[in-house]
């Protein structure tokens, strides 16, 4: 039996909008094992983004338990969450979210800098990560000098930098054309196969989701299908 990286138990999230309460998540139970590659699908307003924020420790649930890599993280403070994000989670965003004034390698070094890794080691790891995503020789290019696909590769290298437990990719191909999207998804698949990186991916495109080994479908704050590893119904 593989070790569970993520275990969600009865996670709810309620947003207050003045008088109204919005139930974004209504009791999510989810287990993710090490080395899984999961796609989260669902129409807009289904709670995908909220689920990703909670999985990514950017936000805490209103109730429920979230165990990440053996540690309960649903009640942590802001700064403790920052440390968890830094050490255990790698983010890949739709719009890349690279710092424009920094070169590719500096962007990749950034998470390691916040971890306190010294410059020489940091540079070496960043070089390796960039090589892993196929950007060898482009270390000192600024994001504006790179194509969309290359920028996303830099972002993936950055997500890999601190050797996280999990990579969360929020619509990583949303800003890319279909050819480049497939290249990026192949990179994710390769990382999952070869480096055994656990990946959770949010998308609303079925052909992108098909790269993943399991698909979870959300609707109105609950999981419709894909709750367990064996559940393959769509």
């Amino acid at each position, binding site marked *: 039996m593989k070790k569970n990286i993520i275990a969600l138990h009865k996670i709810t999230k309620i947003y207050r909008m003045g008088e109204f309460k919005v139930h974004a998540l209504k009791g999510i139970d989810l287990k993710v094992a090490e080395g899984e590659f999961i796609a989260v699908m669902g129409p807009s307003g289904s709670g995908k983004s909220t689920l990703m924020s909670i999985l990514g420790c950017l936000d805490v649930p209103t109730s429920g338990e979230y165990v990440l890599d053996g540690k309960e993280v649903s009640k942590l403070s*802001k*700064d403790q969450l*920052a*440390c968890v*994000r830094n050490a255990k989670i790698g983010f890949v965003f739709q719009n890349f979210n690279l*710092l424009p004034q920094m070169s590719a390698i500096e962007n990749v070094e950034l998470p390691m*800098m*916040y971890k*306190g890794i010294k410059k020489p080691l940091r540079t070496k790891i960043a070089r390796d990560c960039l090589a892993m995503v196929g950007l060898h020789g482009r270390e000192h290019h600024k994001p504006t000098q790179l194509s969309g696909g290359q920028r996303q590769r830099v972002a993936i290298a950055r997500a890999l930098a*601190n050797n996280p437990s999990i990579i969360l990719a929020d619509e990583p191909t949303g800003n890319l054309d279909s050819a480049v999207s497939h290249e990026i998804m192949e990179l994710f698949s390769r990382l999952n196969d070869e480096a055994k990186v656990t990946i959770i991916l949010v998308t609303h495109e079925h052909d992108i989701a098909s790269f993943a080994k399991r698909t979870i479908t959300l609707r109105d704050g609950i999981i419709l299908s894909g709750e367990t590893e064996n559940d393959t119904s769509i």
Partner: protein
Amino acid sequence: MIHPFEIMRASIRSIGANKLRTSLTGLGIMIGVAAVIIMVSLGYGASKRVSDTFSNMGTNLLVVFPGSARSGGVRLGSSTKPTLTLSDWKAILENCTSIEDAAPEVRGSAQVVFGNSNWNTTISGTTNSILNIRNWHLSEGRTFTDSELRSSAKVCIIGETVAKELFGTLNPIGRTIRINKIPVLVIGLLEPKGSTGMGQDQDDIIFVPITTAQKRLFPSPFPQNVDAILVKAKGAEFIDSAEHEVEQLLIKRHKIKDPSQKDFNIRNLQEFMDAAEESTKTMSLLLASVASVSLMVGGIGIMNIMLVTVTERTREIGIRMAIGARTSDILAQFLLEAIFVSLIGGTLGIITGCLGSIVVSHLTSWPAVLSIKSIFLALSFSVSVGVLFGFFPAWKASSLNPIDALRHE
């Protein structure tokens, strides 16, 4: 955990990324700091000039004048009654313990002639002590000998102005001038002293032995009387006790029962000096506080720009937070940015301020005194401005919610 040095590097990078904005923001601080330094140094200069003029007239100096005369119920002004005598002077010199020196003075004005030039000046009959009391030195020649003082010798020491008017470029030493038609030998030339705080030319004077003035130049019905006694206290802290001692001694010697009816006046130069210094200090404080207003305005400029920066870089803050920056890391980064900008402005302001005060003092002939203290003060002031006005924007940046910050367009 991130090394503080790395945060510093991040701050310096983002300052460098926007050079025009940084320099304009720094300019506000620079002007403020420069203004404070110029104002403080000019203020110090002014008070130094005041204290210089006073110490020029003689430090720790007391002057005893005779009291006012009464003429049929009409009181005349100070020094109208011949009450001070040479024996008063000797008694002061012998009995008062707080004094360093004392000199009697008989003053008069006379027409002085040399060759075909002539000049009207003040003649002061006194002893060598007056030079010590008034911190005056000879640039040439010698002082009076004891026998000259005793024998009312026809010798004199002349001031710079008198020498210039009578002799022009000639060396006056060893030449004879006529004071009230009496030939007098010039034995000494005084160093130039300039004018007093009140604009009197101190160099327009001739010193003669007191006996010469009393017997030959200004013979009076009271040959023992003097116009003033100059007293030098042992030090600034002895001025009050010296004044008290002299007062008590003269009250006793003149057999005065009611001290309010005393027949002499004592003037204390230290009091004038203190009052004058006080007023210049107040003035420089006022100037500095006006100047510090511009430093405040500069600080508000920093705050303004930092707030814009925080809004502009919300996405960057979100990214940094998502990949593991803690609240304190963001706070430190933005606070350091504000501090660096104000420090750069402050340093440039110190340079400008120093140059500025030198230029201003050259143009206006006001002395400027640059003190390390005021420079240090200005620098620490600019850093505090950075902290004070940078804190709110930095706090705003650090309290952003990472999710909202990431979504910010």
